[in-house]
């Protein structure tokens, strides 16, 4: 296992992402709401660049107390990154596929040291 340099924290603003390759590892690193997350950049579906697509909040149904459908909204808490090839959505904080949480991208540990961001691959 090696620590692979990703970026300096100061040069990696919140809301952005970086990509690193190390041997067979193709890794997407996200900086989101003060935390760093790193996953395999290979979609579990057909191998698309899973981490390179849009970041979208989870769409939720709004169901009334009487069980009637009242519309839809974007989640205030759950955010996903979306594989740009076919739309597979992954929970940005877990790497789980939002449509089937039994599916999960390989997760990499992120280490912060001396103002730098590393992933362990």
């Amino acid at each position: 296992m090696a620590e692979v340099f990703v970026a300096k924290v100061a040069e990696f603003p919140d809301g952005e992402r970086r990509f690193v390759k190390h041997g067979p590892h193709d890794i997407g690193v996200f900086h989101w709401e003060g935390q760093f997350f790193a996953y395999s950049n290979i979609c579990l579906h057909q191998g698309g660049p899973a981490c390179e697509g849009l970041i979208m909040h989870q769409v939720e149904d709004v169901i009334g107390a009487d069980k009637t459908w009242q519309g839809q909204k974007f989640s205030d808490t759950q955010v996903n990154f979306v594989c740009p090839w076919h739309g597979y959505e992954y929970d940005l904080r877990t790497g789980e596929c939002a449509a089937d949480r039994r599916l999960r991208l390989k997760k990499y540990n992120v280490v912060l040291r001396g103002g730098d961001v590393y992933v362990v691959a």
Partner: protein
Amino acid sequence: MIELPLSQDRRLKVDEFDSGKMLANAAQQAKQRGYDQFPIVDVDSHHYELESFNEILEYMPDPVLKQLAQMANAGNSKGVGVMPGGVGYQDMGGRVTRYPLRRIEKPEPGVHRDVSLTRRWMDAMGVDIAVLFPSPMLQLGLHPQVEAEVALAWAYNRWLAERVLAVEPRIRSMIYLPFNDPDESLKMVKAFAGKKGVSGFMVTSVRYRPVHHNSYMKIYAAIEELGLPLAFHAGYNWNEQSMAMMNKFISVHAIGFVFYNMVHMTNWVLNAIPERFPKLRTIWIESGLAWLPFMIQRLDNEYLMRSSECPGLKKLPGEYITDMFYTSQPMEIPRDTSLLEATFKCIKAESQLLYSSDYPHWDFDLPSTIYDLPFLKETARRSILGGNAVKLFNLDIGAKKLAKVA
């Protein structure tokens, strides 16, 4: 530069888009799997013909319709006014980014946009020959003016033949037939047979004329005599009365793309069209595969009880169905792979199945969807990915590789 609206009122600025870069992982797959060792033919792919609509309209035969269409295309409506269309969310709110970003993709200098962009994704996937079809014009069978379907079909086909097929031998097509006018369809068959890049004829399935109508027999006879295949390309129509009960695009897409081909296939088989035109080869495009075991079981079961309604049949409906050809996309990948394996066996996939990507549409399939199937031997993989199409279309590439596999 383009700015995309995202969730929670965020915005994303994008400066450039290159589908070759977006498909870098596909190129990697091509290299890893040795696609340079055998030909791959994609029997259903697409372009966005409205990006070249001004060019296409120059080929319109009717001067009044031409002026109407040109004026509509010049205004803010961009084609609305002459093209039937409807509600649809293929791009999933931009999540499939090639939809919004393709407008900033640049072709190679001096090469027609459709040729350049098509070659780009073909090379990334390792595809040697692509059969190219339009996108919005798949709805043209719903045009309320039959003469407009006819005029647009002539314009599109002439444009495609001259500007795309004549230029790039790796791109082929099956010519759109304006099927709401059988006489004009027959003229179309005669006009385009033998032209460079013409590998058959195509009927868009979303329409409301039965394929067994007597007025079509002369068309089938002509295509059979030419020895070219006839394809039915699936589609959806949210305005279909039963589909209008559905409130989501996923619902209309999932059911619609199978529904019309089910209707046409039922009519085709039970009216014994394969017996009347035994040498006419048919291809059913873009309905996936899961509908076929259903059709075979359903029709065989009822036929054995009600054969008096179908006296033209000389064998079970399912036996005609397994003589036909099918494109693979969107191939359902069930959690239980044995279901897919049984489907392949049921439809004689090793000889009847033709790989298709449907690229650049949202649910495209890479060649690896076929290549990686654990129950296929290497010979079957290669047949489905290219060999079957080489035989069906009598392609002269043999085992040659035309794609630039990295």
